[in-house]
């Protein structure tokens, strides 16, 4: 479904992504791991149009998508959450999801129909599935950090993506929130067969839920394979797993 080939992105001489390769099949959960500054977020930005690659190819469903803008890629079926919570802070939980649903339904140019209550059923269904239904009328800025991250996943889901990209979905979460988030990711993958690409510093978590793992160090892909293959890779052990085991 997604294929990244020798992609390079530099910021004024510094190569943040330098020869990344990645392969994601439909229905898989794939994780990207690597130390701080390895280029994971930059890679994700390249996949969602927030940055364009200097060279290399990014193919989604067989088509080159490198350099397309974020809103176009969302419509093509890639949605995401960000490493730092990125929601509409002044809108309620309900409205955050609603606006994403309306965008997907191409209703954002309706200027006279009242927005209140539009797409209510679907928004409620999404909020129930992520466990935020009871907080639907809360201004989203007032949510706990963990709930904000979950809300952002809900917003990303509202676009009915084929590929969901999550940049450190559990970062900063309390243990029980992390647990809940993992269950959610599993459920999304299991129930709706959603393809998920994420990155995470919690290595145990990664080995627990990812079908396959890609290891990135200094912008380059060191290895991509099953948990077992990654564990066995000596380069990974020296460069990453051995020294820290978790960052």
């Amino acid at each position, binding site marked *: 479904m997604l294929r990244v080939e020798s992609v390079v992105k530099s910021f004024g001489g510094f190569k943040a992504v330098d020869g990344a390769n990645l392969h994601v099949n439909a229905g898989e959960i794939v994780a990207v791991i690597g130390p701080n500054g390895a280029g994971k977020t930059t890679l994700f930005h390249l996949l969602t149009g927030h940055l364009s690659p200097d060279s290399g190819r990014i193919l989604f469903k067989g088509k080159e998508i490198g350099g397309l803008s974020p809103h176009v890629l969302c419509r093509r079926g890639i949605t995401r959450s960000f490493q730092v919570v*990125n929601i*509409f802070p002044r809108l309620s939980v309900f409205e955050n999801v609603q606006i994403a649903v309306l965008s997907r339904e191409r209703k954002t140019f309706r200027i006279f129909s009242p927005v*209140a209550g539009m797409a209510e059923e679907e928004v409620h269904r999404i909020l129930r599935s992520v466990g935020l239904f009871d907080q639907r009328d809360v201004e989203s800025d007032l949510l706990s950090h963990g709930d904000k991250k979950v809300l952002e996943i809900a917003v990303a889901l509202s*676009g009915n993506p084929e590929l969901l990209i999550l940049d450190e979905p559990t970062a900063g979460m309390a243990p029980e929130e992390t647990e809940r988030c993992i269950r959610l990711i599993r459920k999304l993958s299991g129930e709706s067969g959603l393809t998920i690409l994420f990155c995470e510093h919690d290595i145990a978590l990664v080995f627990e839920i990812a079908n396959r793992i890609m290891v990135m160090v200094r912008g380059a892909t060191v290895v991509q394979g099953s948990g077992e293959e990654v564990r066995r890779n000596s380069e990974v052990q020296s460069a990453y797993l051995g020294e820290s085991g978790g960052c």
Partner: protein
Amino acid sequence: MRRSATPFLLLLLLAALLALPQVLPRFHTYVASIVLLTALLATSLNLAIGYTGLYQFGHAVFYGVGAYGTALVLTRSGMPAPVAFLVGPLAAAALSLVMGVICIRLSKLYFGMLQISLGSLVWAVVYRWYSFTGGDDGIHGIPLPDAIASPKGSYYFTLTVTALCVFAMYRIVRSPFGKVIQGIRDNPVRAAAIGVDVRLHQLASLVIAGFFGGVAGSLFVVVENSVFPDMMFWTFSLEVLIMCLLGGMYTFFGPLVGASVIVLLRVFASVHTQYWSLILGTILTLVIIFLPDGVLGRFVRRSLPKEDRGA
């Protein structure tokens, strides 16, 4: 509670406005007309600056073009008056589209500065083109249909059009489009990430704001019977901006309040002093220091963390 009281208060206000010319002398009826159309102008600006978060620093240009469009059709073509009242706002919307396409690529302040520059260009053309626009003299004695030529007639026309336009904008900010532009204002990155074409929506918002600004300009022709270039000069843009700031940019009705206060003050002040800009400057200073959310915003705005403020 406040939410349920609002429609009632508005009806009361409307009733009072309907009765106004029956009890007020001529001059005050005229002032009330100016208050109304300026309130429309400020509300239209707020669509761009308060609701979309675009630094619309040259809004008076659309007001001026709306006025000149209507005035020129009325004086120079044999076309019926309704055409004139369409041409003004449509010309303003078209100009808004063209300027928007040019400026939208720039961010924040640069957008505003370029808009002022382009607006000044339009002003300069109008100011100099004596044979067409009347140059710095403007156009006077514009012929109007009898029904709206009297002070009362023009007042009721202004009231009707302003009420309809404000209602239309009220609907717009509560539509899906309205929600989306507010989302863009607060977080353009997230908006794009959910599939919203940010620039296209910003452009649409600018065109709508320009259109209603143009309507206010057309009403000016009805009330004043004349147009002159200074109504589109950048200093007047600033004055309208102050109205929004004073009333509260994050409230729908704030700019209406701000416009009323400023217009009444100006009328009052011009009787007693020549130092209007001094007064305006003082108001601006006081507002920025004591009422950063504006008069209305101070009372109705939900409390939010500081870092989320700012258009």
